[in-house]
């Protein structure tokens, strides 16, 4: 049986600013899985994901999304990817529906199909009553939901989220998490960074830990437990242990 193409395949990826932010990193994420990416502040998570999304040029190494080399065909790779950051990228003076129409235009989704998906998404995220209001007066949670709807309106195969739950209240966070889990059930791949370790513990099938630009551990929660002295410990215990161990070794 042929090996399925991974959703994301990264080899020896490096990026330096004043110092190395990502340092010869290798990472493979399988299609259809929910992958949690953890790391202390400044570990290189955002730099890594911004390179995958095409927002930063790597210094060296390769990134392949569903078999598409991003250096060779960036446009084809972008077609199947959606990027959501902790700062919602929404226009104050457009309504959610207009914003989704704009995103659909950028991804060349046929108008009829885009409209049906947009209305379904807004309904799903509880934004339908605000569909014709300008985003300018929205709360952070509402803006994040609009940005998430924008990420989903073109039916991506890989969704990359950088701290999407930052600043959201419990209700909005629950809605976002439910939407993501539903998408994974539909076969979409999700890669998410978060500092809320309980979220990663409950949602992610596999977890990668990054420190100083390198992947220092990876696996399911049980596999990670096996690597530390915390047989029954929480992800927080495991994470802190792994990072401390790596710092000591360095």
């Amino acid at each position: 049986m042929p090996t399925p193409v991974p959703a994301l395949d990264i080899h020896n990826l490096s990026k330096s600013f004043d110092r190395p932010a990502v340092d010869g990193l290798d990472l493979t994420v399988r299609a259809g899985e929910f992958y949690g990416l953890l790391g202390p502040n400044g570990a290189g998570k955002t730099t890594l994901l911004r390179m995958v999304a095409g927002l930063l040029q790597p210094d060296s190494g390769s990134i392949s999304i569903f078999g598409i080399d991003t250096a060779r065909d960036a446009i084809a790779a972008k077609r199947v990817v959606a990027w959501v950051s902790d700062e919602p990228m929404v226009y104050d003076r457009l309504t959610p529906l207009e914003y989704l129409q704009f995103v659909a235009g950028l991804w060349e989704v046929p108008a009829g199909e885009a409209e049906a998906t947009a209305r379904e998404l807004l309904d799903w995220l509880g934004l339908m009553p605000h569909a014709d209001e300008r985003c300018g007066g929205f709360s952070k949670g509402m803006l994040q939901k609009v940005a998430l709807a924008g990420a989903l309106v073109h039916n991506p195969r890989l969704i990359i989220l950088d701290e999407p739950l930052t600043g959201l209240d419990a209700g909005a966070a629950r809605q976002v998490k439910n939407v993501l889990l539903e998408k994974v059930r539909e076969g979409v791949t999700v890669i998410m960074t978060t500092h809320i370790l309980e979220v990663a513990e409950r949602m992610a099938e596999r977890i990668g830990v990054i420190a100083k630009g390198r992947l220092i551990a990876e696996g399911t929660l049980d596999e990670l437990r096996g690597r530390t002295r915390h047989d029954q410990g929480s992800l927080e215990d495991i994470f802190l242990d792994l990072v401390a161990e790596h710092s000591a070794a360095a």
Partner: protein
Amino acid sequence: MSVQPASITWFASHEFSLFWRDFWGMMTAGRRRRGVVLAIVLVIAALLLHLLAHALVAPWLAQGVVTDKATFVLLTGGGLLFWSVMLSQALESVTRAYYARADLDLILSSPASARRLFAVRTLAIALSTMALAALLAAPLIDMLAIDGGPRWLAAYGVLAGFSALATAVGVFITLALFKLVGPKRTRLIAQIVAAIIGAGFIIGIQAVAILSYGTMNRFAVLQSSSVVAAAPDLSSPAWLPARAAMGNVPDLVLILLFGLGALAIAVVVSARSFSHYAIAAAGVGQARVRHRAARNFRPASPGQALRRKEWALLRRDPWLVSQTLMQVLYLLPPALLLWINFGRSAGAATVVVPVVVMAAGQLAGGLAWLALSGEDAHDLVVTAPVAAGKVLRAKIEAIAAVIALIVAPLLLLIGFLSPVAAGIAALGIFASTASATAIQMWFRAQARRSMFRRRQVSSRAATLSEAFASIMWAGTAAILTTGPAILAMFPAILALLVLLLAWSIRPRTSTAG
């Protein structure tokens, strides 16, 4: 000696240290060597401006300055020009003191007195207003003092009195707007009023000059016998500022007392309500605007989606529309000149063509900044499956369409006067628009659209080269309209050199897109 925390002196020293760090950082970008270069450039610029001022005032002083109505009209008219700029600046700064949230939330939530803070900020506005006016007027006043005697230094005192008055009027207008139209609309209306005041006097005086004398020389109207004849008698208090500027000490004291007194009253009156209105202004962001139910999604290519988005954002931002319309407002006097000369002579085109070319360049610079740098969803656009070149092209098309819409009627009017001049104007508009857009493209740096006001501060190189290029293209068009075409080569070559220089110093980034 330590200063009592939260006292007026303490707030003043805090404000001054913030101002100084901002100013120094903006001027030197954190490099000490740049400070030295900047100082040399400023000294040379000051010398050149003083030479220019000498050329202006020396012939006037040589005729012998008589204390008559003609002199008073000239000085008062010139003073009003300066005061309109002062008032415009003060009104905008006062509004900003209520709406800028930088540290206001921290201070308003602390037990410190907001009254003291506002008093300090109002005084700071008066000082910065005076600094701006002094910067503009210093070469003239200094040369009047050097060539005509030290009595002219009293003009600095008049500037101080009138900057205090401008700040007081700015405070009262803002308070009145809060009461009349509420915090939601105060900022926008104040900004529009400030812009109109800033430009209105110049535009008005040009329009009067055109209607009465058929020229765009704004001082012609001040020197005309009919205006001088209609002016009040020599004993009128209207001439108090002019007499004070000429060194009359009692009049100067009266001006200072009047200005500073008005400022003191404004501070006392407004400080009481400052926290109330500042908190009301903070709630403005929460307001929601509802549109009629959206029409069905229209099919769109990425380029169409980008263009429609740019136009919708521009249309829905009343402040940006007002700023854009200000450029159009500057075009009104040349349009008026065209109108009164319609069918009579092609001479008016000589005056109008460079103004239109220059205005188009300035307009393009602002719009290009909004479309290229002021992209609020930068990450979204970069991660979309659209080639960077296509995105750029769509945004430039969006800008070009807006400019075409604005200048087309003027081109048509010029065309009726002289088809050749219309052709030259069209070429000039194309060149200045393309130059301004290219410069904004080379210097683009991701920013929020709300930073539009500060775009000129963020890249002085872009602002200066954009202005120089526009001026040079306007010069090229002017020479092509009137004189031997060969001479037009010089400003055109200078414009190209400015572009080359801008391109060579453009910032290089490693960020994709």
